[in-house]
């Protein structure tokens, strides 16, 4: 009998720490840690880790289970299944890429695990009415529409050429750009998809040069943007404006290529000079900690992790309550105001306001919307 009590007491003693520390919460984080997308994935990891540290200071102890999807949807899916069934996480932040995030979204309702997508832009992810899928960043259509809105305040472009990576993100961004351009009466003269990482765009670019479009709209990851711009200069392609959507045009490395990056427009989910609470401070701390400029991915991951962990902690790690908490809550932070709402075709989508930046004299300057602008945009484009 005594033995039984002792056992019961031990069991209780073991169980109580979990119960007493209501602010300990288990969150899954699916990201691309290895593989071709790893360099961008690293920014997300850094952002998420910073959020975990900040949460600890606030008394929320996040038990983060990190999974690597290597950029492949099937790996992302199995990672999600593991998090849902074996690790019993309260919610999942990620994955990074559109293809992976979309694959996981299709299963989130089945497992009833809230998923918060930090930075994937494919529209479909929040268009299928999934109850447990939330997205912090603005979807792909905003990448292009916000830039065209900015250009329309500067001039009247007649024609546009598209050059983009044939990924989920590239294709869906250009599709929405085409629809928007059509609405604005801008004529499409070229539509060129390319294989990510291709070393030679010269032939494509010389074809575009011969068509002489007013705008060149590009969707490129990482350093493809540099290759594209280098070869544009080489060939002498000179539109009225280069519009760059996607990660490749918003990196510190692209910025460092002063000869070719000057005056290029890009849209971004986040910049560190925007007056959202804590944005500048986040930028400063990030730079001190990791020795490089934060990309918007880092900010998105930071905010997504904060929102997910705070909500899950407040709901005691219960998945359904966390889901309801995400649905009804609203936040204010480094990404501005966040609220997951249903609008147009979207469900649980944060109506995030994107920013247009232009590189001027080796610096990203926010030029649109005007309430966030730090400098006036320079138009039309000319090679340095």
């Amino acid at each position, binding site marked *: 009998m005594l033995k039984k009590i002792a056992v019961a007491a031990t069991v209780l003693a073991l169980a109580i720490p979990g119960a007493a520390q209501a602010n300990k919460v288990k969150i899954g984080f699916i990201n691309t840690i*290895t593989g071709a997308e*790893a*360099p961008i994935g*690293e920014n997300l990891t850094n952002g998420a880790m910073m959020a975990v540290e900040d949460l600890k200071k606030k008394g929320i102890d996040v038990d983060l289970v990190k999974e690597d999807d290597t950029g492949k949807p099937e790996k992302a899916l199995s990672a999600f299944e593991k998090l849902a069934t074996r690790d019993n996480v309260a919610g999942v932040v990620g994955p990074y890429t559109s293809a992976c995030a979309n694959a996981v979204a299709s299963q989130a309702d089945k497992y009833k695990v809230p998923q918060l997508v930090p930075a994937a832009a494919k529209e479909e992810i929040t268009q299928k009415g999934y109850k447990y899928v939330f997205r912090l960043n603005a979807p792909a259509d905003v990448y292009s529409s916000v830039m065209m809105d900015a250009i329309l305040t500067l001039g009247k472009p007649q024609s546009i050429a598209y050059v983009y990576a044939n990924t989920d993100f590239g294709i869906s961004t250009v599709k929405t750009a085409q629809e928007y351009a059509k609405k604005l009466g801008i004529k499409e003269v070229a*539509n*060129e998809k390319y294989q990510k990482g291709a070393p030679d765009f010269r*032939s494509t670019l010389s074809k575009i040069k*011969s068509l002489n479009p007013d705008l060149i709209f590009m969707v490129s990851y990482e350093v493809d943007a540099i290759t594209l711009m280098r070869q544009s200069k080489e060939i002498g392609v000179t539109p009225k404006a280069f519009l760059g959507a996607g990660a490749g045009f918003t990196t510190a490395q692209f910025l460092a*290529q002063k000869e070719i990056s000057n005056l290029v427009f890009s849209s971004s989910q986040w910049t560190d000079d925007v007056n959202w609470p804590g944005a500048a401070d986040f930028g400063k701390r990030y730079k001190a900690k990791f020795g490089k400029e934060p990309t918007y991915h880092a900010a998105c991951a930071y905010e997504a992790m904060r929102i997910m962990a705070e909500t899950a902690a407040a709901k005691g790690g219960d998945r359904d309550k966390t889901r309801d908490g995400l649905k009804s809550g609203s936040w204010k932070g480094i990404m501005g105001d966040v609220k997951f709402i249903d609008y147009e075709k979207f469900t649980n989508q944060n109506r995030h306001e994107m920013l247009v930046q232009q590189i001027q004299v080796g610096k990203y300057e926010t030029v649109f919307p005007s309430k966030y602008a730090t400098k006036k945009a320079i138009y039309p484009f000319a090679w340095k």
Partner: protein
Amino acid sequence: MTFNVLVQAIISGILVGGVYALIGIGLTIIFGVMRVINFAHGELMMVGMYMTYFLFTLAGIDPFVSIVITIPLMFIFGGILQKVFINRIIGTLPQNQILLTIGLGLIMSNSIMLAFTSDYKILTTSYSSASVSIAGISVSEPLTISFLITAVITAVLYWFLMKTDMGQAMRATSQDREAAQLMGINVQRMSILAFGLGASLAGTAGALISPTYYIFPQVGSAFTLKAFVIVVLGGMGSVIGATLGGIIIGVVESVGAVTISSDWKDVLVFTIFLLVLLVKPSGLMGKSRM
């Protein structure tokens, strides 16, 4: 599409094809002499790229000049790899060779990732986007230089294989390993030489492409695939075949991009690849072995 655009595409294709050829030649020599398919070839190229990058950023040596350092270093690296690892699996089952070379490649790319992070490294020279315009056609300066270097290296290599005793010994080894051994050729040494040469050619290709491309630990895999297509197209083991294969792939990609569309260029490349193999299964310059 105007005539100019087409000429532009052909010229760009030939210039890029030159670098492809260099990658292919390294792979084909290794296969020819050792009958080992080197799946770590792209990673060797990546190591060459990192060498070039650090020679440029730390010592200020121009990428095109730095090949005089990269070539011997990569040769020694390749020789050691062959002596320590590859040598043990010569003549074993092909799957053992595949696993070993893939494994070596993974170790290389992941060690580099641990040491230098997965960040992209970009080598910016004053001529990275420079070009000369000839009759409305722009010719990339860095590509032209790298094409000329490739041409010189290929010529020297060809002379070495055809005219020197050691080159003949290498060719003999690639024709028939046992017979060469019976003739008193040190086939062990030939294998080390072949792998060293292959590695230094891959490293050189890496160095030549650095000023216009970018460098990261996983950059190799895309080029490994390309190198295989080039080598099989040209005929396994044939240096001329690999040169031809590289330039054909470069031109087809480039012309395909302007005549059809850039995302169809790979379809075009592989269609031509399959057609060549249908008509001539041993590749353009390959000899059937049966």
